[in-house]
């Protein structure tokens, strides 16, 4: 049971980590919580599902979903957030909530509310490790997550564009003054964060199904992980995501599965009050 829960936790945690990246990247450049990020997760999964229905090869369908997610994030930014740069944070937040309601219901309008299963080439196979059986798809999720993390690290630290994003997260206005197109940086950030979020949705699709409201709790958890890791701290978000998944699984297994989702919320409250800079966070100066 212990090992069962540990594996479940790591799989869940990988998903949360991928989700957390999106929140954290957007926070970095705009200092705002993109509440509609959970809908990118859902959108990506739905597009993959739809592509599979059209007999697209599975890898292409997955890729299509990721691209669609990126596009969704990009459009969100361009159509709404960009036009609200000078608005108070609260307004942005409410706009994000509005977008999330729109996307959830648009998905339902187009594809219906019935949960559907995304196919996976690995789902039906288990691998025996000692006397434990581990599903191949779970291993696929974990490997892909690690891969994405490495690629993202490389992108941010080794490429020019990544460095621009990094600079933007230090100070978006100064970046603009230095002649870097801030809007472009923000768009790229949204696109990358959303692509990773959509990937999370696609990976979850075969296990927990695809349906219009699938992004709600995934979003909250990813967001909790990003707060745990320290808002704006990408490696922190990844580790916190994994941690959250494991804690949640153990709590569900050993305390009560009904309160599974409450675990993340309690952690969120606790972190906010006791360590608002996150577990691994550098201390971000609070404004007086």
């Amino acid at each position, binding site marked *: 049971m212990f090992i069962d829960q540990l594996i479940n936790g790591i799989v869940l945690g990988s998903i949360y980590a991928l989700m957390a990246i999106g929140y954290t990247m957007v926070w970095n450049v705009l*200092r*705002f*919580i993109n509440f509609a990020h959970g809908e990118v997760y859902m959108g990506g999964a739905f597009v993959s599902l739809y592509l599979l229905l059209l007999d697209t090869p599975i890898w292409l369908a997955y890729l299509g979903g990721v691209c669609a997610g990126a596009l969704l994030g990009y459009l969100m930014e361009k159509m*709404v957030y960009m*036009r*609200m740069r*000078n*608005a*108070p*944070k*609260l*307004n942005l*937040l*409410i*706009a994000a*909530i*509005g*977008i*999330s*309601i*729109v*996307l*959830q*219901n*648009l998905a*339902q*309008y187009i594809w219906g509310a019935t949960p559907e299963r995304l196919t996976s080439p690995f789902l039906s196979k288990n691998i025996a490790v000692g006397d434990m059986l581990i599903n191949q798809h779970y291993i696929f999720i974990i490997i892909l997550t690690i891969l994405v993390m490495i690629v993202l690290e490389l992108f941010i630290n080794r490429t020019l564009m990544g460095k621009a994003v990094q600079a933007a997260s230090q100070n978006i206005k100064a970046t603009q003054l230095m002649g870097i197109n801030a809007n472009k940086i923000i768009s790229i950030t949204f696109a990358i964060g959303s692509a990773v979020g959509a990937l999370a949705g696609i990976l979850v699709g075969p296990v927990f199904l695809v349906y219009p409201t699938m992004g*709600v709790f995934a979003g*909250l958890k990813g*967001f*909790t992980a990003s*707060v745990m890791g320290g808002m704006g701290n990408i490696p922190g978000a990844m580790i916190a995501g994994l941690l959250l998944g494991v804690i949640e699984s153990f709590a569900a297994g050993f305390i*009560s599965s*009904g*309160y599974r*989702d*409450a675990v993340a*919320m*309690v952690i*969120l*409250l606790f972190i*906010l*009050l006791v360590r*608002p800079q996150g577990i691994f966070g550098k201390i971000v*100066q*609070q*404004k*007086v």
Partner: protein
Amino acid sequence: MELIKRSAFRKSVLLLGGIALFLLPLGIVNPYFMYIINLILIYAILALGLDLIVGYTGQVSVGHGAFFGIGAYVAAILAKNLGFSLWLTLPFSIIITAVIGLIIGFIGLKLIEEYLVMATLAFGTIIWLVFLNWTDLTGGPMGIAGISAPPTITLGTLQFPFIQYHDYYPLLLIFVYLGILITRLIIKSGFGRACTAIRDDELAAQAMGIPVFKTKVIMFTISAAFCGAAGALYAHFLHVVSPETFAFGMSVTILTMVMIGGQGSITGAIIGAAILTVSSEALRETPELRMLIYGFLIVIMIMFFPKGIMGLFQISKQRLLKKSIQVEKNVVEKEGLSYEQ
């Protein structure tokens, strides 16, 4: 003199209008319309309550649906298990919600801006999960049905039983008036002004001797109590409560009412409540499109009319302009301060 006359005229017009509203049921035949109007009144109390903390004190909460729920569940549990009537459940709902509001406010209001939003979100979700999972007390996903109607009111030889939706209307209207009155009394006092000062500039407010944290906590408590009262009324009005009503979506709905109506305005809160209730009922005909249109409305309103409907009544564009300059200045200042540190 002129001024006094004018305000006396205004007062008498408002008073007459207020009394005239009691006659509204006479003109409405369809009980369904009455049902919607009653819902508007309940939501108006919620919106007034949230506006106290969001509009007047500048502290954003996306967890007030939970306070609404606590009020409703307290009333439902007391009515079902102990046979309490509305007159007994209502004070309990208000007090218990206020106490929880006090605790949450005390914990959460140390946080600012986005962090407060996150904390209220977490709190609201936890409370909702408690409604959902504490099956012995709350009925879990089944909720609690069969909550009693308010007892018949007897005035001399006149009897006012609560059977049809027409019967609930005057009662709910009285509570809305009470809510408006209390809101006004609070705003037009040193305490209320302190809240507004905190909303506009916390640092300056504190320099004037205003205990910022305490004031916020008290206002948060009152705000929660409003929602508790609305909850009790809702439970006895609809006769059933179930957890999903009080999930995150409810908190968002109340916040949207305040935003659409216009923050920091009593009229705005009520208009917001009316618009959202009517539009969501009107869109019931097209279940798939209902929430879709609702979401679009929120995005469009917040993008193009961020001051809400009451914002349209602000006569001077110049004032808005000036305001945005001031806001900019505050931002620069804040950054300056943190930079210096």
